[in-house]
């Protein structure tokens, strides 16, 4: 018997239909504009993909539209773990449900929502549980979501049926909805969730496996460390690709923030733009960064601390871009993007850049 956690954010996706760019904080407005819930039907589509093992799973979920109704409609065996019943759910319920489901020791958590939901799930379970996102929200930037509800169900099925033990970390991204409604795109990297990783399912068979990807990241780290020079400051940008560098050096790191090292020691962790500018003002400095998976942003997404001022100070020739081949392939030919807010400077960054993809291995890639 397998146990699956299920959380549906019933209001996810309501804003989109009525042009609200997200539903956070504006549910009532959305309702007034005639929006109706999207997520429940999408969750049902995903659950239908699990029918063939229906008798072998138990769904652990919350009341009403948060999962109970959807699971019931598909005829699954259910365990409802919420104490309260029959009221409108809210963001706090999502977080609470995820925490409780984690305690229930399920095999996998399926959740339906958008970027905001992914963030809530991340806050509750972190990297302690494999999850699969059913896309139902207005904004879907996080790679935690499958390309369609049906695909989400199928991925879950593969994970449960074949006991694929491999998982991979994917970025949890969200944009500030208030700013977005005013036309300002301000994406942040919130953290990482773990999704089942079946290379067959995602990329066609053997187009690189998670083992290779981890191996590639370690090889990249080795290459970077080998080239490190004495008394030069290294700015280590955020992300799971830069992390192995810090791990290999045995240094404390900030996964989502910017760290500064010199002579294999931490100068300072988690620096702000101001702190960075101060620390590097009169020193030789190099910048190690990796693009955001699936999007290709080198600057301006998830690493706003590394502003155009900082990059200018470091110098274009001192930027070291790193990414595994897997990550490059997931861009499906899309070029790298930069958006520092300083348009003239962004243009000056355009052209070709070398990307370290392994030990003594680089590709040449275009920045647009």
């Amino acid at each position, binding site marked *: 018997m397998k146990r699956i956690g299920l959380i549906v954010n019933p209001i996810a996706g309501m804003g989109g239909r009525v042009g609200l760019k997200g539903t956070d904080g504006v549910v009532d407005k959305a309702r007034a504009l005639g929006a109706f819930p999207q997520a429940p039907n999408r969750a049902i589509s995903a659950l239908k993909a699990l029918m063939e093992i229906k008798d072998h799973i138990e769904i652990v979920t919350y009341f009403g539209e948060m999962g109970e109704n959807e699971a019931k409609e598909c005829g699954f065996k259910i365990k409802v773990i919420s104490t309260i019943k029959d009221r409108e759910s809210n963001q706090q319920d999502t977080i609470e449900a995820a925490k409780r489901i984690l305690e229930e020791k399920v095999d996998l958590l399926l959740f339906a929502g958008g970027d905001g939901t992914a963030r809530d799930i991340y806050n509750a379970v972190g990297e302690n549980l494999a999850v699969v996102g059913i896309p139902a929200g207005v904004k879907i930037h996080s790679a935690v979501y499958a390309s369609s509800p049906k695909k989400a169900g199928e991925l879950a099925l593969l994970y449960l049926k074949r006991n694929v033990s491999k998982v991979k970390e994917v970025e949890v991204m969200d944009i500030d909805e208030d700013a977005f409604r005013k036309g300002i795109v301000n994406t942040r990297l919130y953290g990482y969730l773990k999704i089942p990783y079946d290379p*067959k399912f995602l990329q*066609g068979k*053997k*187009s690189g*496996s998670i083992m290779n990807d981890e191996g590639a990241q370690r090889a990249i780290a080795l290459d970077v460390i080998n080239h490190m020079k004495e008394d030069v400051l290294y700015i280590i940008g955020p992300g799971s690709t830069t992390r192995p560098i810090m791990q290999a050096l045995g240094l404390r790191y900030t996964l989502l923030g910017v760290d500064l090292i010199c002579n294999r020691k931490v100068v300072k962790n988690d620096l702000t733009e101001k702190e960075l500018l101060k620390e590097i003002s009169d020193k030789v400095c190099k910048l190690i960064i990796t693009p955001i998976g699936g999007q290709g942003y080198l600057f301006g997404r998830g690493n706003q601390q590394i502003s155009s001022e900082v990059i200018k100070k470091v110098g274009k020739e001192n930027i070291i871009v790193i990414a595994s081949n897997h990550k490059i392939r997931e861009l499906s030919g899309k070029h790298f993007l930069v958006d520092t807010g300083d348009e003239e400077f962004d243009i000056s960054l355009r052209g*070709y850049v070398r990307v370290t993809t392994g030990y003594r291995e680089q*590709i*040449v890639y275009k920045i647009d």
Partner: protein
Amino acid sequence: MKRIDRSLKVRTGFHQAKWDEPIIFELSKKGERGVLVPQADDEITKEVGDGVSKISSSMLRKEAVNLPEISQSRVLRHYVRLSQETLGADVNIEIGQGTCTVKYSPKVNEQLGKLPGMAEIHPLQDESTVQGMLEIIYETDLAMREISGMDRFSFQPSGGSQAIMAMASLVRAYHEANGEVDQRDEIITTIYSHPSDAAAPALKGYKIIYIHPDKDGYPDYEAFKSVVSEKTAAFFVANPEDTGVYNTKVQEFTELVHKNGGLCCYDQANANGLLGVTRAKEAGFDMCHFNLHKTFSTPHGCGGPATGAVGVTKELEKFMPAPLIDFDGEKYYLNYDVPNSIGKIRSFNGVAPVIMKAYAWIRSLGAEGLYEVAKIAVLNNNYMFKKLMELDCVDAPYIEGKQRIEQVRYTLEKLAKDTGVTTGDIQRRMMDFGMHYWCSHHPYYIPEPMTLEPTETPSKEDLDEYIETLKYIFNEAYETPDKFENAPFASSCHQVDESNMDDPEKWAITWRSYLKKYTEK
């Protein structure tokens, strides 16, 4: 008696042999023998001893060699059964193994390779007793010079990748001689060149820089320009690449590398559409390699014994693997006078029977025949390309509307999106019709890839049968996509869990390591 209906080109009735054939070690029966050697006569041992006790104990085995003990007929049955369980070149229409140039290799050349004068000579024989073989190698060299424009060939490498390794060694030796070996530590290649074009130089200590294609599938010249420098040791590239796209501007690439002091190495393993049409020399290359086991119609030796013929310009001759085969006007001889030689690539002078078969093939065709080979290979490929591109679910990225050389990397992305059936599924299903089908090297840069290379040898009937079989299966994908999950149905072996291939922890390369990993706990 009812005749079988042959109106459908597709062989729906195929079923491959299937034997529950154990590993040969599992067939071993203690004491069973293939040939029984008579015991030594008492009088003989009395005179000269038992032949063993005089060997010093430190040199004696403590235990008998652990070889299978098995009768002759059982050995024969074992291997014949295994051969029936493979989809060999002689039983299927070999179109599906793109980039491998699997063509029909005339059986008469096989027989030549088995002639006593060929099969019974040994490379350690005195030169004067193997003049014929040396002549064949020398003349094959002359032919290859003509075909490529290079000035000297070596046939030592026994595979394409080994030839690429030899080229990487030549590059290193050249820069060493110029005192630039430390400065030049970068090799540039392209993502659609063969993986060995990166792997071999990497093994030689070089840093590898990959160029992605531009929107037409040519290596992106601007990207290339941004990395060629005084650090460039060499440019390794295949042309056409595995996409079948021929980079007509390759000369601009080689010129730029030369201007910066680097060398240009041409992976000509994809030469089947180029014979008598273009040459490495005119494209500006300093060296190249051909796979005799592909273009020159000798059977594939599976990583050797095959032959990767390496050719270089006059300037690089002094770095070639020694010995070279030369002719002094009277006799052929092994020439060890190669001052800056990279040394030996393998024992002796190459795989003699393979060189012999290639030589026979070249001589039987002549210059006109070789050109004809290229022409027919290209026409066959483009006929197939046209027929397949008429199908809604098949596409091929790059140079839209233009023709390809000798192979095409297609994409079945639409089919996969429409039906959920992937190129890997198609590959497995093709086996049910007794056909090979190859996707691509990894990683898959072209989604859901399918790489086909018809060569010059299949007839139109063969091409049509292959195309019809693909169509039949694509149709099936739309109508009964679920069927593919369990394919193949008519093959010797059902699905193999390929995830094991990604996990070195699970690999067992030998029987002994299998026992260690899986049975001794």
